[in-house]
């Protein structure tokens, strides 16, 4: 069967599994929407009052019946109503998604445009000073938690330049591209830093592997210039693991860069899910997780397709 069709057929099954898992797990955590809203004051409620609130939050029914109601809605594109926002879950998610998408793309761009050249540089100057510098940097990048880097950037900007990126709200790219990118450039650097480090390391080692291959020696012996050997002959093959890594990483980024969004106070998908969990906004948690899972699947499918483009030897679905 066609590979793409095969993958598309498994989509609904995976999403069904995700929906059950998230539906059950969010309800297994102690505490509910009532304690989330009232805190310890929830203890002052009479049982009648508690029943009123349970009905309001839709948690008065048995869990299977809650699931069926929710699941039935999915087929009409209805992910339920967020109790925090008082609006349909899907519209809340779509409001928060552009920020996360832009942030993910920007940090991916930063990570790849810094990581690949640095990796290639290090590989071609194997064991020389510049290679060591790059490797130390990469090590540092991978081991610095994003909250440390983010706070350092904010601190540095506020102390040295007396400015901080706009926080709390978000200017969409379509409204004011410059303001939008300006707001996201530092969060994207924070987010992309560790990823750039991974890209550097992976492209360095992949490049070293490829440079040792027979066909590279053949290219050299045929008189190809050093530059053309690296960029034309070696790089495309060295990029395959980078593409794999990027696909997985991009999926995670779309799931919301929770920590970076939290530090820079960006109202994106990551913070949306985090707040939905702390506020036990069940419908919003379920909808967002499903949305993220869907994105993850789509991105990974695209990555598989890019493989084929990069390396015609790979024929998906055929052995």
């Amino acid at each position, binding site marked *: 069967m066609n590979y793409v069709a095969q993958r598309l057929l498994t989509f609904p099954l995976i999403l069904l599994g995700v929906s059950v898992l998230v539906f059950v797990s969010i309800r297994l955590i102690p*505490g509910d929407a009532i304690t989330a809203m009232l805190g310890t004051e929830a203890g002052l409620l009479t049982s009648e009052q508690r029943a009123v609130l349970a009905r309001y939050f839709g948690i008065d029914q048995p869990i299977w019946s809650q699931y069926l109601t929710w699941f039935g809605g999915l087929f009409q594109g209805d992910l339920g109503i967020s109790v925090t926002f008082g609006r349909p879950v899907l519209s809340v998610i779509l409001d928060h998604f552009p920020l996360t998408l832009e942030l993910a793309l920007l940090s991916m761009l930063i990570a790849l445009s810094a990581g690949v050249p640095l990796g290639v540089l290090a590989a071609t100057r194997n064991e020389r000073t510049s290679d060591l510098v790059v490797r130390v940097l990469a090590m540092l990048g991978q081991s610095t938690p994003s909250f440390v880097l983010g706070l350092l950037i904010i601190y540095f900007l506020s102390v040295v330049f007396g400015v901080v990126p706009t926080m709390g709200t978000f200017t969409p790219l379509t409204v004011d591209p410059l303001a939008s990118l300006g707001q996201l450039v530092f969060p994207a650097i924070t987010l992309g830093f560790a990823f750039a480090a991974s890209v550097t390391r992976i492209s360095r080692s992949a490049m070293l592997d490829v440079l040792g291959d027979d066909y590279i020696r053949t290219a050299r012996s045929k008189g190809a210039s050093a530059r053309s050997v690296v960029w034309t002959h070696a790089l495309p093959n060295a990029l395959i693991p980078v593409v794999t890594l990027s696909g997985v990483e991009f999926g995670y980024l779309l799931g919301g860069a929770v920590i970076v969004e939290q530090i820079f106070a960006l109202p994106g998908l990551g913070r949306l899910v985090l707040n939905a969990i702390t506020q036990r906004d069940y419908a919003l948690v379920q909808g967002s997780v499903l949305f993220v899972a869907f994105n993850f699947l789509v991105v990974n499918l695209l990555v598989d397709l890019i493989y084929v483009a990069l390396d015609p030897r790979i024929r998906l679905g055929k052995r």
Partner: protein
Amino acid sequence: MHWTTPRHLLAGLALATTLGSLAIALPAQAAGLRMAWAQDATGLDPHKQTAFSSLRLLELVYEPLVRLNSDLQVVPAIADSWEFSADGLTLTFKLNPNAKFSDGAQVTSADVKASFERLLDEATAAAARSNFLSIASIDTPDATTAVFTLSQPDAPILVAMATINAAIAPAAEIAAGTIGTKALGSGPFQLDSWTPNSQEVLSANPNWAGGKTGVDGITISVLPDETAILASLRAGQTDFALINDPLVATLVPNEANLQLNRVTGLAYNVLQLNPARKPMDELKVRQAISCAVNRQEVLDTALVGEGQVTGPLTMPAFRSDPAGLFCYQQDVARAKALMQEAGYADGFTATVIAANGEPPVASSEAQVLQSQLAAIGVKLEIKMMELNVYVDAWLAGDFDMAVAQNGGRPDPYPMYNRYFTKTGNLLKVSNYVDDTLDGLMQQGRSETDPDKRKAIFQQFEQHLTEMAPWVWLSTGYSYTAQLKTVQGFQPNPTGSLFALSQVTID
């Protein structure tokens, strides 16, 4: 093209940074106050909301009949004056005839009646209802007079009315069922928009009976990390902010352009013992724990000294010198002796629960207590929990000990009746009551003479600390930080930000 040389790469990075800095150059100065807080409001229903930020937001939009000033005195809000009858069974309010909702409609006694009836209706599901159960009926002889008939004398009810949970909302909105979706109040500001966990936009209410506000509006941004709030203040991009973490608060005075406002709050930090569990059911064990704790050290270490050692009564009008309370001077020898008498000379192991970040000092408090109690052989295992999980365990009384920060009230009765009276709603949490405590609470509730009430509640406090169901530790500060260009903010021990109606910006 040799674009992989380190020099070119660095140049590229520098260019990217410069572009970024240009793009984030200061946005145009917005009219009004730019405010920030880490925790957003959780809803707009003044009767039902209990979260700190929700109350602070709604206090700017709605008004109760009376409010508390910065000395915790009851002062007029919608009501101009009020009077208890001689038998304490009738409470009459005269409303300010100029009080208007932001749509221009006058606030009448019918709105007062409708609001309290909504609050008392179980179908509303307002937790604050429990403070108003003595209200038997409400009469409205004319548009500006509201008469509350009480089923029993209830002196603290006036203070209970001075919270936004007893806000007066328009009777028409109550009938339409739009409270909580639309915020239509008689307060200094009106809410133009709310994006949960992101931003609130308020503008001055032209119909406010209190006159013109000092700023045209307030924009509140939610910045979940308080270090980022500090950076934003430092950069002059935020005018005014709420700060929870004492560690962040102590950094504010280092900045030349910033001012820290702090006021001793009513909330208290406490180590709750659970007398329903062995061996905390033994009075001597509880007393031993109380004697083994060095409260000043907990304060100095966990709260970086930001606060005061306190007994159960945190409000200035009732507060006494904590040095006179049971074992407030650490006495390890006495603690060990008490443990021995109770038959626990070798100590015991217990679990203490605490919530992550709520308050920010919870985990350090637990650690200091752990080391202090080790001296008498009590081995504490610390269990940190997500706030909701903690609340769930706390409400179920499912803990050996709990590090908590509990809210305070300007009056001891509403503050402690839930825990230490026989009908208290949270008896399951405290697991402790005796005839003395219950009797003193009932006396304090019906007594109207302030001096007699003070004496009653001090007796209550003495007895409570001696029975040691909980070990009261300290009361912290409630902080706000602001640019020095913001003038005229008066902090309030309740945490209220109502005074923002008076601030101006230079």
